[in-house]
């Protein structure tokens, strides 16, 4: 019996959703946390500015940003909205198990991230391009990018009545949680962690990974925030 093509293509769309979350998007999150962490410690401001210039003058950067980060991220976000439509009203009240909560948080953080990432990309990537006269940007050959000074001021500013520092405290936590818990989910969806014991161990590993990434993200955030003080 030949399966309908639509069956296979729907399955592929789902697998693509899992894959984009893992590799381009998840992989970029790691690279991003790593690059930003350069701002930590003595000489951090200069080190960070250099990392930004190096990345932004990379001749492949525009292809990487659009093809490897932008499009997969958009796909993951759009498919994620479809996944969210499958959910019923949260039932953690009656069934308050850990995994029911982690399931719920995966959806809540996903929804927050749609807004947070849009906001973050606007202020740190698009503003320098569209408004090159914004103060404190660094420039190279006519192109403008963020600098550690810009980030410092930015985190002290307030947007929508909230200090930007707080927006990032929440956004980073959501991104890291969504990634770490997503990894745990992928372990199951890819048939790697099958039994309850294996899933418990992978839960601990993903939890530890998430906590580490959160510490790295927050350290960078506060490095910018406290810069020069």
């Amino acid at each position, binding site marked *: 019996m030949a399966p309908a093509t639509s*069956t296979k293509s729907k399955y592929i769309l789902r697998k693509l959703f899992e894959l984009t979350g893992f590799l381009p998007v998840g992989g970029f999150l790691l690279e991003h946390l790593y690059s930003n962490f350069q701002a930590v410690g003595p000489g951090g401001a200069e080190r960070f500015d250099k990392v930004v210039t190096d990345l932004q003058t990379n001749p492949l950067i525009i292809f990487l940003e659009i093809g490897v980060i932008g499009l997969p991220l958009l796909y993951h976000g759009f498919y994620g909205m479809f996944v969210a*439509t499958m959910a*019923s009203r949260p039932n953690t009240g009656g069934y308050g198990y850990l995994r029911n909560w982690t399931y719920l948080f995966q959806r809540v953080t996903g929804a927050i991230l749609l807004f947070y990432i849009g906001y973050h990309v606007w202020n740190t990537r698009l503003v320098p391009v569209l408004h090159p006269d914004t103060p404190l940007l660094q420039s190279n050959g006519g192109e403008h990018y963020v600098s550690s000074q810009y980030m410092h001021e930015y985190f002290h500013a307030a947007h929508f009545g909230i200090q930007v520092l707080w927006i990032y405290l929440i956004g980073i936590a959501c991104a890291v949680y969504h990634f770490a818990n997503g990894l745990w989910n992928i372990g*199951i969806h890819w048939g790697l962690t099958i039994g309850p014991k294996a899933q418990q161990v992978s839960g601990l590993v993903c939890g530890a990974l998430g906590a580490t990434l959160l510490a790295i993200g927050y350290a960078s955030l506060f490095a910018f925030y406290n810069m020069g003080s």
Partner: protein
Amino acid sequence: MSKTVALKIKRQDSADSPPRWEEFDVPWEEHLNVHAALMAVQRNPVTKSGQKVAPVVWDANCLEEVCGSCTMNINGRVRQACSAMVDSLEQPVEIRPMTKYPLIRDLAVDRTRIFNDFKRVHAWIDIDGTHALGPGPKYSPELAQTRYELSQCMACGCCMEACPNYGPQSSFIGAAPISQARLFNLHPSGAMHCDERLEALMDDGGVGGCGNAQNCVQVCPKEIPLTTSLAEEMRETQKHALALLFKR
């Protein structure tokens, strides 16, 4: 005054009439279960405030937790009325119908969807033929043990009722049909239709619909290792998909 049991029941005359709550006090008995308490209401359908009402409607059949028909929400948790012992429950015992299936009346719901989804995953073994097929293939006691656990599913719907990804809003077929696909794929004769089952699981509403909330395994009255079945079938469908991709 003799001891009584307080019940609080969510009632609804039909799918589109407004719901209401009614309270009843029924005589306590030793080893009283919710099914028997509902029978007491049926014998004397008078509410706590003395109002005579229509008897409460619910489904039941085996009375020993093997048919699944008396499944309902008892104190916020989906389970079988016939095995819910009143003495172990907080009172008033709050009883609601299942929420994920079309309501018929009071506590009775239409669970046809479960059976349709069992059909969708080909949850049976084809043994009919026009000639004698001979004895079936032998298989190991270990496999028999694994299959026995899965075979206890009574299609009660608890795993689906508790699943946050299952319901009228979603095409997801839920844990039980997926576990049944595994049960029949593990059987040497059933395995002849393995691809058909896997492709049903790859379709809309198949394994991709699971969000790993794992409530299913927590609520299954038969303690079926549902999350293991889910992960096994995720692996099998993926293997099948890769084979389709690379072997053509």
